C-alpha cells in the first residue's frame, strides 16, 4: 500500500531520549533539533569535528538520504576515549560503554567513546578487556583525548580547532555570495514570466520575499516592503507560496494593503522549474523569508521573520 503513495508509520520524527542515569529517560525529541521526519534507518554517533561532543549521521530511506546533525553542546566537561579493540568495556564515572563494531540496526560505530564528566577537573578511566583482564588508568584532565591499548594510555592532542559548518538557511539551496539563478514564475493573472535577477537589479538591490496570505507576520511585513520598494535603489518582488486555490485571497490581501511592487507565484506543474528548484526548497522554507540580491545578481543576505531589512 505504501508503494501506492500511502504512508505506513510515515512522517515519524527521530527520537532523542536523555538518560537520567537510573534507567529512566526523558523524551526531548521535539526540541532537540535532530527530530527529522524522514524515514531513518542506520544511525552513527561520532565526534566528526573533534570538539568533544558526538554528532549524528542518519541514513534515510528516501528523499534527503544522508543527514548530519552538529552537536551544539559547548563548554561541558568531557573525556574522549579511543579504543580499537572490539568488545572492550570502558567505564568513566557511572557510565559504561562497549566498543562495538556492528550494533543498533545495520550500523557500525567508530572506536571512539565520549563521556560527560560535568565540572570535574579530571576523570578516571577503567577498561575491561575482551577475554578478561581489567585496567585502571591514572586520572586524565577534562577535555582530553586518550588512546588506550593493552600496553597503556596515551593522551593525544586535539586534532584542530575546527567545527562542522553552520547550517545553511533552511529552504535556500545556494550559499551567500552565489549567483541567483533565473526563475520562471507565474503572475497574478496566471501567465508565466521570467525573473532574471541581474537584469532586474540594474544597479539596485532586489528583495525577493516569500510570503503567504495565511501568515500573520507576512501581512505585517507587506507595508514595510512597500516602503523599501519606494526607495530608488531597491526593488521588491513578493512571491506568494499560497496553494493555487488560495491565490485569489493572496491577491486580495495585496490589493487591501495597497501594494505597489511585483507579485508572483511559484511555477506551476509543467512549467520550467530548474532555476526555482536550484534556489528554493518550499517544504523547508520558513516564511516570511527575504533574499537580498546585490546589484551583480548574487545572494547578499537572507532575512527571516519580521526583522527589518
Amino acid at each position, binding site marked *: 500500500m505504501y508503494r501506492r503513495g500511502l504512508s505506513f508509520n510515515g512522517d515519524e520524527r527521530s527520537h532523542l531520549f536523555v538518560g537520567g542515569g537510573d534507567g529512566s529517560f526523558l523524551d*526531548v525529541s521535539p526540541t532537540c533539533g535532530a527530530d527529522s521526519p524522514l524515514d531513518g534507518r542506520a544511525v552513527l554517533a561520532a565526534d566528526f569535528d573533534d570538539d568533544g561532543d558526538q554528532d549524528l549521521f542518519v541514513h534515510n530511506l528516501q528523499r534527503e538520504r544522508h543527514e548530519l546533525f552538529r552537536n551544539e553542546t559547548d563548554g561541558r566537561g568531557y573525556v574522549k576515549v579511543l579504543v580499537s579493540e572490539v568488545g572492550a568495556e570502558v567505564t568513566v564515572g557511572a557510565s559504561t560503554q562497549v566498543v562495538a563494531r556492528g550494533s543498533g540496526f545495520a550500523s557500525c560505530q567508530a572506536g571512539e567513546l565520549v563521556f560527560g564528566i560535568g565540572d570535574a577537573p579530571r576523570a578516571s578511566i577503567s577498561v575491561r578487556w*575482551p577475554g578478561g583482564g581489567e585496567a585502571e588508568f591514572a586520572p586524565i584532565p577534562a577535555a582530553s583525548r586518550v588512546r588506550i591499548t593493552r600496553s597503556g594510555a596515551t593522551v593525544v592532542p586535539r586534532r584542530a580547532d575546527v567545527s562542522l559548518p553552520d547550517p545553511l538557511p533552511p529552504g535556500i539551496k545556494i550559499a551567500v555570495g552565489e549567483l541567483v539563478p533565473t526563475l520562471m514564475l507565474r503572475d497574478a493573472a496566471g501567465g508565466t514570466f521570467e525573473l532574471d535577477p541581474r537584469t532586474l537589479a540594474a544597479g539596485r538591490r532586489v528583495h525577493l520575499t516569500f510570503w503567504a496570505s495565511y501568515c500573520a507576520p507576512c501581512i505585517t511585513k507587506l507595508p514595510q516592503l512597500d516602503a523599501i520598494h519606494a526607495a530608488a535603489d531597491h526593488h521588491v518582488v513578493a512571491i506568494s507560496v499560497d496553494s493555487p486555490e488560495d491565490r485569489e485571497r493572496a491577491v486580495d490581501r495585496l490589493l487591501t494593503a495597497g501594494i505597489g511592487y511585483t507579485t508572483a507565484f511559484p511555477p506551476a506543474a509543467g512549467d520550467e522549474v530548474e532555476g526555482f528548484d536550484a534556489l528554493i526548497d518550499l517544504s523547508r522554507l520558513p516564511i516570511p523569508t527575504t533574499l537580498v540580491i546585490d546589484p551583480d545578481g548574487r545572494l547578499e543576505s537572507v532575512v527571516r521573520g519580521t526583522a527589518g531589512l
Partner: protein
Amino acid sequence: MLDPRLTVPVVCLVVVLCAACGSRGSEAEPQGVPAHVEASEYRIELPQLRLRRFAVVEDLAARSADWLGGLSKRLLLRDFDGAGEWLASDFKGHDLFGARRRAVRARPLGARIARLEAESVVDARGFLAALRTRLGPWRRVRAAHIGVREAEFARDRAWGRLLVKLDLLGVTADGGREAIRAALHVSVRMGAGSESWTIDGLEVLSATSEASPAPLFVDVSRASGVAFEGVRYGTPGNDAEGWNGAAAADIDGDGWIDVFVPSATRSFLYRNAGDGTFREEADERGLAADVAGTGAVFVDYDRDGDEDLFVAHVGWIETQGTRAGDRLRLYANDGRGHFDDVTAAVGLDVFAPIWSLTAFDHDGDGWVDLFACGYGRMQVERNDSWIEATNGARNWLLRNADGKSFTDVTVAVGLEGARWSHAAAAADFDRDGDQDLYVANNFGSNRLWRNDGSGHFEDVAAELGVAERGNSMAAVWADWNGDGRLDLFTTGPTSHTGERVLARLAHSRSAKILQDVTRMASGNALFLSEDGGFRRMRASGAEDAGWAWSAVVGDFDLDGALDLFCANGFVTGDLPRDT
C-alpha cells in the same frame, strides 16, 4: 433524549431545547449557550447509545482521522481562517491556546517543560483568536499532527467522541524550539458525508509546552557536503525497504572519522576533510563498484592496523544451485584508505539475504570474527508466522583464521535457527570473559546467545528474561543505570492505529492472542541487568519512538548519564493518511 456530552446542567437544558426544535444545523446561531462555563466543569461525555459494530466504528475512526488530517495541514500552514472551517458555529471548548503555563521542571540544556492549564471555555471566535496569538509569532510551524487514538460514535451516527493527540512543533520568534502537545476529547458532529463533519466541542485532558532556547543539534547536512537527494521509495533504484546501513571509522589514519554508506545504485565514502566538511570519494578509494549493499562494518580483520570493510548484500542460491544477487564482500584497506576487494582471496562465498553485520571475537583467539544476520526474501516467501516465524534466512558465524581466511562455523558453535534476523550486538554481559551475542528478530523471539568460554553458544534469552517477542529492529548494550553491569536496549515499532484497533478488540479476543499481538507493537524495551538476569523496565520513558529502526547510545548532552537516539519511520508517502 438528553445529549449526554455536556454535564453542565444549564448547557444540557439548552441543548435539549435546541435538539427538540431541530436548530443544530450549521446555519443555526450559537444561541442559548451560556456566556460562562467553568473550565473545570466542562466535559465531553461518551455517547450513551453507542455504535458497536467494529468495522463500522473503525471505518468512521479512520475517516475522522483523514478529516482531521486536513486540519493538521491548515495548522501547518498557519491558515487560521481555513482552520476555522473545521469548527461548528456553535463550538464551545477549552481555551487550549490561551492556557496558562505552569512550570513543571527544567530539562537539560535550558529546556523547560510546562503544563498548560485551560482556564476558560471559549467559542469558535475566541478559540481561533488564541490560536492565532499563540502560533502567529512563530517563525515556522515545523510539524502539526492530529492523531485519533480512540473513537466512539452515537448509534444514530449524529456525533462521536474522539480521543486525539495533538502535536505542534515550531520555531519560535527568537529561533528556539517549542512543542505543544495535548491529549484532547473532541466532539464531532457528523453530517451525511465526511465533508460535512464539524467539531463542536473540545476538552483538554492534558497539555504541555516544551520550549528550548537553542536546540541540542542543528542540521548541517548540506553545509558539510553529505546531503544527497535520493529518489522516492518504490521507484527504480530504491525499492529495498529495510537496508540503508552506515559505518564510521577513520579509514586513512588522519584522526578524522569517515563514513561509508552503502545504497541501491552506488556507494558513498564520505572522507572527513578535517575542516568540518566531507568529500565523497567512493570512486577514488575503490568502493564505487559496490552497489546494493545493506549493512557494513569497519574492522581490522588482518591486524595490520587499519580499518577494513565488510559490506553485506542480498544474495541467494537458486534451486538448481546457481548463485544470484550479490555476495557478502570484504575490502582490505591498504593503510592509506584505499580498498581492494579480497572476498575471494579469504574464501568468502556467502550468498544470503543479509542486512546487519556484527564483528566480534567469538573464540577469544584475538582475530575478530563476523556474525551476519540472515533475514529473508519477502519477494519469494512471506514469514510463516507473525509471532514465531521459522522460515527466515539462516544466520552466519564466519570464523577468522589468522586474518587469512573465513570459515562458516555457524552450526558447529550452536548458532542454528532461521528467524528473520534484523540485527545483533555483542558484549560480555555476564562478565565471564567471553563475548556473548544478542540477536534481534522480526516476527519472532529474540535470542541471547551465551558463550560458554570455548566459543560455543546456547540461547538463554527466555531464561534470563530478554526473549522479546515482536518486531525487534535493533539491539544496543550499555550500562544506563550506573550499576557497572551492561543493560540491553532493543527497538521495535509502536503503532497508534494498531493500538486503536486493539483497544476495541480487547473486549472480544482471547487474552493470550491479544497479549502476543500487543507485544508486537509495544515499542522499545530497556532490560536492566539484575541478579544474573534482566528485568524489563516499566515506563522507562524510552518506549515510544514510533516505528524505530537503529538506536545508538552516547552521552549527547555530556551530563554524565548515557542517552539514546533512535531513527524511525517506515515509509512516508505523498498522501497524509497512515495505514
